[in-house]
């Protein structure tokens, strides 16, 4: 008991220190970006100081067009991710639980997976034009593989003892998937979700920037074309915040879904998983 108490207080003490340092780091970073253009390390015309960017960001927040763009980006991201996650999970569970199917598709998957989604850009432009649909194709294509690979790994990695137990209790195929395969594959599924969510955001912005489908990326491109430098940076900051929020969201989901899982429990006990 005594040792545990000593350890807990040490852990909180350490966390307090690291949080303080972290905040200091962020402030320092903002300060560097504020000062560097002002003293001429970088050209102030093309790299405005933090304060100016923040002011411009504030102005943007007051404009309906900004919110529309943000909403569109979020919708594209969410729709693409949803399609990729569902498709990746279904196909992944199938491939993972049927070895013959897995063997037959292995080479195909290995060839299709590394094809960069940006290779499809010209294709979707001629097929669908500068629409959300074009961007969705890129997002789904890129996020699907992240999900698929993790789910297949997860299903293949199911403890053989658990599988045998399921068989001895005559769970049947559906019961086996529901009570044995799915729960033990869940950590992998969550990893896939995390990777897919990040990739989906990257491709959403890429599509908007390059194809010109409506959203934040397109606004950034427009601002750059018309040399509205501060708006470019303000919107870039928004995408960064979006990235952070998505990370945090997915981690929350992960922690809630995997609360029962030994790996998660061990992590929180050790104070490692808290981030």
């Amino acid at each position, binding site marked *: *008991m*005594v040792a545990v108490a*000593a*350890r807990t*207080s*040490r852990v909180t*003490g350490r966390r307090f220190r690291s949080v303080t340092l972290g905040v200091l780091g962020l402030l320092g970073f903002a300060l560097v970006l504020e000062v560097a253009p002002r003293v001429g390390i970088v050209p102030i015309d093309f790299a405005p100081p933090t304060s100016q960017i923040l002011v411009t960001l504030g102005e943007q927040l007051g404009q309906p067009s900004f919110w529309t763009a943000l909403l569109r980006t979020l919708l594209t991201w969410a729709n693409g991710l949803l399609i990729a996650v569902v498709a990746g999970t279904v196909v992944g569970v199938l491939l993972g639980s049927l070895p013959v199917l897995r063997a037959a598709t292995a080479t195909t998957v290995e060839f299709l997976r590394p094809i960069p989604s940006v290779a499809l850009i010209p294709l979707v432009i001629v097929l669908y034009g500068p629409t959300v649909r074009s961007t969705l194709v890129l997002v789904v294509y890129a996020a699907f593989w992240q999900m698929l690979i993790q789910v297949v790994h997860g299903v293949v990695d199911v403890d053989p003892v658990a599988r045998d137990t399921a068989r001895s209790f005559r769970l049947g195929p559906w019961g086996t998937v529901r009570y044995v395969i799915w729960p033990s594959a869940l950590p992998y599924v969550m990893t896939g979700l995390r990777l897919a969510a990040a990739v989906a955001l990257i491709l959403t912005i890429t599509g908007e920037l390059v194809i010109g489908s409506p959203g934040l990326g397109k606004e950034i491109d427009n601002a750059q074309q018309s040399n509205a430098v501060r708006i470019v940076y303000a919107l870039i900051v928004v995408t960064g915040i979006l990235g952070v929020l998505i990370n945090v969201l997915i981690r929350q989901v992960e922690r809630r879904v995997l609360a029962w899982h030994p790996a998660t429990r061990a992590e929180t006990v050790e104070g490692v998983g808290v981030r």
Partner: protein
Amino acid sequence: MLEVKNLHKVYDGHGRRVTAVGDLTFTVPEGQFACVVGPSGCGKTTLLRVLAGLLPATSGEVTVRGTPVTAPPPDLAVVFQEYGRSLFPWLRVRANVELPLKAQGMGRAQRRELASEALEAVGLSDVDNAYPWQLSGGMQQRVAIARAIAYQPKVLLMDEPFAAVDAQTRADLEDLVRSVWQRLGVTLLFVTHDIDEAVYLGQRVIVLSASPTTVAEDLAIDLPAERDQLATRSDPRFTELRGQVYARIQQVKRAPAAEGASA
């Protein structure tokens, strides 16, 4: 020669101090084979880490061959309990043995010779090209011992080196350590929780008390220098010494444990 004088080690948590080593004093003369036993959690590993210079003492003095220990001293080698984690998995057996020699700036030819000798001494000449993880646990610990031999230390510390190997392998490794010690003439401090092992191996057994640790008993083992798994272990004197150590440890365990025993 190894000297420990009034050694204290206190782990400092926020608002709580946990005493791991209370007040420890003993001396191991040059060339002696000393075994340290004690109840589990009595700070044996802490003691060894302080001796090796891996952990600073809170107070008191540790000297190896007359020099106070502040950092890992030269001429001192350690064989860790976790053989699987103390060998470099990305280096082959021979490279594992040679790495410390390379760090000394020793030439290639001499390194090869020392490593070959050491590997031969532990009976592993034929696997020098394997990776550690391709070997059994007992063989991995032999590699760690070979690395210590090739290093040509004056003082050798071993931290429960055989705690994780099976009984059969363990007997072989015990005899190996005896022969290595006799051949090299090193000062050897062998930490173990196994009473039989301590009495069988050592010229002397130091029994530690429960934490905060002090020396509870310091026993000379007057068994013949030639030890044999069968003959020595059935020697009435062995049984007697073993009984003495056992009784002392039981007594120490029953004594009221002071604060921080769970650490």
